[in-house]
């Protein structure tokens, strides 16, 4: 079930909330939690009931292993370590089979000459999320960082529907203690209102902003994947549109998750903090998909040695972590390359910091120009990386990027023809020619410009959801961004009539945008 569907908003959510607090008010905490677990299983099974068994198996297995690992069996360190290795191997094996087997098989068949049979394996929803969350649990149980938890709480930690299918990737140490608090079983007007408001903001970001700007990215990427050559402008419009689409889609979804959890009095960690305001790629990764960065840092980068073994090692670890992070997003070379270039970006960024610290140790003041430059360069290289991320294969990514670079020429509007001398010309190796700016009529370019400009303003100047909701501690992990507190108080949400009207309009527009009436564009005949 998707958050942005009628079934979810008008049936699943009201029923789940009502029954939960009904049971909770009678004082049956465990019954209420069981209801929430059941509802979450239903939420998951709606998509494909077959995989309910898989997630259940994964939960039981990990809980048992975690249970044993957290017991005092330190007199047998070898046994304990083997248990951990087995447990992690089980999780990796599961995700490896469902997510990566075909990718591995196709490539092994092609390059090593093996003969694995490649059959279609349907990727179980959310497997990347629930496997990772449980690996952290096993590792921490092994290191003695976890207390003993009850099974019901553990089940809810994995399946709690707001975060189940697309994160934020929660950590057991921040979730499980919350389930033991008594106040979450009593319906709170305050939590519900705050949660609903965050949910509506997220819904608006997803169904209005992301889904609308997708009209300008999807046809372009489809055309590139079909092997068509894009013009310079088509490629740039498509790349920018996708950059915004992905952000509003994913951060909108995270907001919705945070809002939904809040309706139950549960705080989830913040996942996005205005990533396109980042002034360096290091900064970017502390703002984009924050809970994934946190996981990769704590459970991949640091265990590999982090920065403790010297500069060279540090850079290698960084590269490997990002390559894995890339692969986590999907089984394909484009994702690996995407991770790789982000690894490279990060290495360059770290090296640059070292160098500038040597030459300008005291120069900490940043001018406005400095900030604009830094933000623009960061944004630019992120856009480049999204093109690779979104392309079906490396060839189409390459073609797309060459169109963006001007290698396929840059068309000029015919009206300039007379004033510029009248014939095609070449400047710095780029061919300029007079032609249609947009080869096919993918969309109305004027509407595209308005959307892209509008979203560009939003990502650069608008406050983000946490900032707007900052009076009411909307999420965990927000303390890091204390410095970003809004200076203007009127921008901060409070339960006032004005805010109610604003949010209800966002809600109305979002609900009216849940479905579209698709149009047949070739209608002249």
């Amino acid at each position, binding site marked *: 079930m998707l958050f942005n569907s009628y079934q979810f908003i008008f049936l699943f959510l009201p029923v789940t909330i009502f029954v939960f607090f009904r049971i909770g008010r009678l004082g049956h905490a465990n019954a209420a939690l069981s209801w929430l677990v059941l509802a979450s299983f239903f939420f998951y099974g709606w998509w494909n009931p077959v995989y309910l068994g898989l997630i259940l198996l994964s939960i039981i297995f990990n809980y048992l292993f975690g249970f044993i690992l957290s017991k005092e069996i330190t007199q047998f360190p070898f046994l304990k370590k083997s248990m951990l290795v087995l447990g992690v191997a089980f999780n990796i094996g599961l995700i490896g089979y469902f997510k990566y087997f075909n990718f591995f098989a196709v490539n092994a068949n092609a390059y090593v000459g093996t003969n694995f049979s490649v059959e279609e394996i349907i990727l179980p929803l959310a497997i990347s999320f629930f496997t990772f969350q449980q690996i952290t649990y096993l590792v921490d149980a092994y290191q003695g960082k976890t207390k003993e938890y009850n099974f019901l709480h553990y089940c809810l930690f994995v399946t709690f529907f707001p975060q189940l299918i697309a994160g934020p990737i929660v950590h057991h140490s921040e979730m499980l203690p919350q389930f033991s608090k008594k106040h979450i079983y009593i319906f709170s007007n305050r939590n519900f209102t705050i949660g609903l408001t965050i949910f509506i903001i997220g819904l608006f970001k997803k169904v209005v902003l992301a889904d609308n700007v997708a009209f300008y990215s999807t046809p372009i990427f489809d055309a590139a994947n079909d092997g068509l050559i894009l013009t310079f402008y088509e490629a740039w419009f498509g790349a920018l549109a996708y950059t915004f689409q992905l952000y509003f889609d994913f951060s909108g979804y995270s907001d919705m998750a945070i809002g939904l959890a809040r309706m139950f009095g549960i705080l989830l960690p913040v996942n996005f903090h205005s990533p396109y305001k980042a002034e360096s790629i290091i900064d970017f990764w502390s703002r984009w998909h924050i809970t994934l960065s946190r996981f990769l840092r704590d459970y991949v980068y640091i265990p590999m040695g982090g920065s403790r073994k010297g500069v060279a090692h540090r850079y290698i670890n960084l590269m490997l972590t990002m390559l894995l992070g890339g692969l986590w997003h999907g089984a394909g070379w484009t994702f690996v390359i995407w991770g790789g270039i982000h690894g490279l970006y990060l290495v360059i960024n770290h090296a640059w910091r070292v160098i500038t610290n040597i030459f300008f140790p005291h120069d900490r003041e940043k001018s406005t120009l400095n900030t604009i430059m830094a933000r623009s360069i960061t944004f630019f290289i992120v856009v480049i990386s999204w093109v690779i991320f979104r392309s079906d294969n490396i060839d189409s990514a390459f073609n797309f990027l060459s169109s963006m670079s001007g290698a396929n020429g840059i068309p000029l509007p015919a009206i300039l023809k007379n004033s510029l001398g009248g014939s095609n010309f070449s400047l710095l190796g780029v061919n300029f020619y007079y032609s249609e700016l947009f080869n096919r009529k993918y969309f109305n370019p004027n509407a595209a410009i308005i959307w892209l400009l509008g979203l560009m303003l939003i990502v650069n100047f608008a406050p983000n959801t946490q900032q707007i909701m900052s009076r009411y501690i909307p999420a965990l992990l927000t303390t890091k961004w204390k410095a970003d507190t809004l200076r203007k108080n009127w921008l901060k949400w409070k339960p006032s009539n004005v*805010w109610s009207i604003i949010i209800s309009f966002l809600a109305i527009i979002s609900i009216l945008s849940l479905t579209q009436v698709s149009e047949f564009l070739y209608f002249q005949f």
Partner: protein
Amino acid sequence: MRKYFNRYLLLLVSMMTTFLVLIAIFNYLIDPYWIYRKIEIDGVNKVKPMFRTHISMAKANLVNKIKPQGLILGSSRSGYGLDPEHPGWQTSPVYNLSLPGTSIYELMRYFQHATAANSVKEIVLALDFFMFNGQRRYKTDFNEKRLNVDRNNKLNFISNVYDIPATLFSIDSLMASIKTLRSQKSTNGYLANGQRNWSSYAERIKKVGGYRNMFHLVEKEYLTDHWWFSSCNRYDFVEPQTHKSTLRYLKAIISAAYINNITLHIVISPNHARFLEVIHAAGLWDIYEEWKKMLVFTIKTEANKSGKSEFKLWDFSGYDMYNSEDVPLKNENKAMEWFWEPSHYKAELGTLILNRILIPMKNSNEKYPNYGVLLTSQNIKSHLEKIRAERLIYINSHHDDYLEIKNLAIKTENWRIKTRCQQLIKNRINN
């Protein structure tokens, strides 16, 4: 503090409910897609400009409302040309369920949709060459979920309500309603019986500067798009995803017609002689002939399988006095009698077609001799040879038309290779 939260929530919920309900009522009454048909008021919502841009949705819903016993199924060619109220129909009501730019798969699905819920008795199935291109993509507004049955004829329980949320509670519908209110001075693109309202076509032809210009536009469109679509792969019956031929959808229609006792009149739509020249210049002549052979073969095999007599297959696409009509010269202010452009024939020609196929031979034969050929496995070979011979006669007597198309084909081919396709497809243009 609790008080503020209560008030905030109350205001939020009441605002949302009020606005959403009002919008839904507004959309229901204005009915921009013409599917609820509750109230029609002159000057308010009588003209439905959004109907023609949402044909797949609107016609799918309308079929369930009108419950026709006779159907016309085909592309925009039969949409313009064939009249559901022709006196030859043995059943009523008849609805023109033609969908513009459709494919044989979509036709099969609309056939299944219409026959599942209604007792359809007679269908004119008007086929076009382009429908069978496996490279073809389905129309953007085609959606399986609104059809009464799935492709295996299993009932779809939500088909009747599927379009309700989108047509009542969406920004698109709201905009469509507003647009409807504002364009009451224009005319409807479709008649109530599903036939395309052709009266606007003359206007369009005037706008582009006459018949010959209109011919050029359409010919160019076919040479650049319709037989290739966005990929550079040329026409092929085989679908790239399934590696199967699109002929199987025609088979499914025929065998279902036998099972449900539906009379099918299968028609190859007429086209102007210049259109055949476009096919030739695009290098598709062989595959075009192959297509006709396969139609004959498919109809015969399905008849044998069911043990019943063959459905009639009429070919109106060959050379005759109608489709060889001269195209007015550039700037010549003259209208054509039978064609709008090479691919769309006029309703007058449609009447002749229906005369021929719906009315028993002897009545119609005298006035319009020899229009259309009944294709069988016996005459298909000689029929194709005859067309080939007649083509030579045509291009010799219409040398300018021939050259015009030839040059257009070369130009579009170069353009496609340069701008669209990375792999060169050679030898496409025959000499």
